């Protein structure tokens, strides 16, 4: 059991709480930096995908996990980012410049979508974002002069003022830098009054409003930042996948992203990356496990979605806090060793909470 004695006020808002955390995060950072030299190309590509989805997950986590607004149209933001980056990169813009434009454009789209969010709540918001996602997908498919339509669009490799990140290792490092920066941005944001306002809105809109939080402004801000992060993820996604088509950004992508944050653990930064790791490695694990199963089950095409669905159901039923929540429980069990009680993390049931009267 570790006790942290706080001797300075700064300690309350420190990003790392104690030496142990500092040590383990340094180890993680070191491992991630040397990964390009230690891992085979295939696994490096998977790690790159985890970082990219992690960035998108951070955005969705901020929106869903910290502001309490659920979006079923996040694939569309990813698409806007990816296509903007693809168009600008093929015009020969250097990466930082085109990324900046991508961020601004995605945030603007996020603000537009955030507008209905000011009037509608809960399930209505989910349906509004769902509708928006379908419309964006259709626009991407029909606006052929810019997006290439259903035939798809080829993305040139990443250009950093003449230095081309065309190898797996160099592109991985760019993604790593983006992921670290995004994480720091989100962590710092959550320490500011804006971040606390988000959490207050999630916990109770009425109380937040009574405390003087301007709901409309903060909800729009949350949507914008979330969309901007999805845009960054989309830009990197475009370079990683090299070939864009509108169906990559449809409803299935949006549901996958939501599944990612729910399984990772809503309301935790770790959850975004854990969820991304799950989303990327799960198909690999299924492929590995295929050969062990009888061929009637193992070779069936529906296996993956059955496994995804079952895992999702299991998490919602047994571990609503997600993978990060499970990790917290395991850690607490070890910290408290013989004194862990079963009810320590018990969820409170809220039968009285009604969405109708809000």
């Amino acid at each position: 059991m570790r006790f942290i004695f706080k001797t300075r006020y700064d300690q309350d808002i420190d990003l790392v709480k104690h030496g142990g955390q500092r040590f383990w995060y340094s180890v993680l950072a070191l491992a991630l930096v040397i990964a390009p030299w230690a891992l085979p190309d295939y696994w490096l590509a998977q790690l790159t995908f985890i970082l990219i989805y992690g960035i998108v997950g951070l955005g969705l986590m901020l929106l869903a996990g910290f502001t309490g607004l659920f979006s079923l149209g996040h694939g569309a933001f990813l698409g806007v980012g990816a296509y903007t980056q693809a168009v600008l990169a093929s015009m020969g813009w250097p990466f930082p410049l085109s990324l900046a434009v991508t961020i601004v454009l995605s945030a603007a789209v996020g603000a537009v979508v955030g507008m209905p969010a000011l009037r509608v709540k809960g399930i209505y918001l989910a349906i509004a974002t769902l509708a928006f996602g379908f419309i964006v997908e259709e626009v991407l498919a029909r606006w052929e002069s810019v997006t290439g339509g259903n035939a798809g669009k080829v993305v040139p490799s990443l250009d950093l003022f003449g230095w081309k990140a065309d190898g797996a290792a160099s592109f991985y490092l760019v993604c790593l830098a983006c992921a670290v920066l995004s994480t720091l941005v989100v962590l710092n944001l959550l320490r500011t009054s804006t971040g606390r306002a988000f959490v207050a809105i999630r916990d109770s809109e009425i109380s937040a409003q009574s405390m003087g939080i301007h709901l409309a402004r903060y909800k729009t801000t949350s949507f914008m930042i979330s969309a901007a992060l999805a845009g960054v993820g989309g830009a990197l996604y475009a370079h990683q996948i090299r070939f864009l088509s509108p169906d990559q950004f449809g409803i299935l992508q949006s549901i996958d992203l939501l599944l990612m944050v729910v399984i990772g653990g809503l309301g935790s930064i770790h959850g975004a990356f854990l969820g991304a790791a799950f989303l990327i490695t799960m198909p690999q694990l299924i492929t590995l496990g295929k050969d062990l199963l009888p061929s009637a089950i193992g070779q069936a095409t529906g296996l993956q979605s059955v496994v995804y669905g079952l895992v999702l159901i299991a998490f919602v039923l047994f571990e609503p806090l997600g993978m990060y929540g499970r990790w917290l429980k395991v850690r607490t069990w070890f910290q408290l060793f013989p004194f862990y009680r079963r009810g320590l993390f018990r969820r409170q049931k809220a039968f009285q909470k009604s969405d109708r009267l809000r």
Partner: protein
Amino acid sequence: MQVLQVLVSGIAQGCIYGLIALGFVLIYKATETVSFAQGELMMLGAFLALALLAVPGFHFWLTVLATIAAMALFGILLERIVIRPILGQPAFSIVMLTIGIGYVARGAITMIPGAGTDTHTLAVPYRDAVVTLGGVVFAVEHLAVIAATAALSALLYLMFRYSKVGVAMQAVSQNQLAAYYMGIPVKRLNGLVWGLAAAVAAAAGLLLAPITFVYANMGFIGLKAFPAAVVGGFGSLPGAIVGGLIIGVVESLSGFFLPEGFKDVAAYVVVLAMLMLRPNGLFGEKLAKKV
């Protein structure tokens, strides 16, 4: 004249949306949760009918009854096994749960060896028949959908108006706690509501099958029933049918008059406009929270 045909097919399509939306609304009113698995329940119903027609070789009308009864039972079981344990959790966990159920249902159907990945046609007695009325040709399949939806709506209306169970369901949807104090078995009724929703979805699947086809992804049509439910006002049963009709008609007319591509998004444009102008829908009641 062609417009009239387009209109009828739009109304038929709208009836399907309306029936699926009816399922959403039933569940939403009873348990304040939204089921994203409604389209998949419809798909399961269609596949079950297919299997019953092919394997034991049931007569068509017997198949219809058996499918609807079996799906109702399935809905009740689903509620008992996976939904009830997490009632009281935030609404979004149930949404995720139903998305998971949808995934499993779709995957499980695809895994059926030999049949899951194919597209099937449901052999209905009125297949490919047409009726000519004053020079306009109508497909019987479309008319059957419209007639069946009307009959089903009437049946549901009578049930909610006169039967004891229906009145109890209304009471539960208005105030769970008060209904519980009045001696209404709230939990059992919630199970029945899920069963009813699944039965309606199965009926929608049976009606839709001759128009499109039966395939594992046919449940995605459920995503178009959300706009229908929202346009009608999420808590209103007649609203669901009216909303479905509006979406269906707008969709088919925009497919007829507007350039290609508008048909697919018409439903979503309508719902976004609706949310901007009248977030409570056409028939929704406006509720404000007392503090």
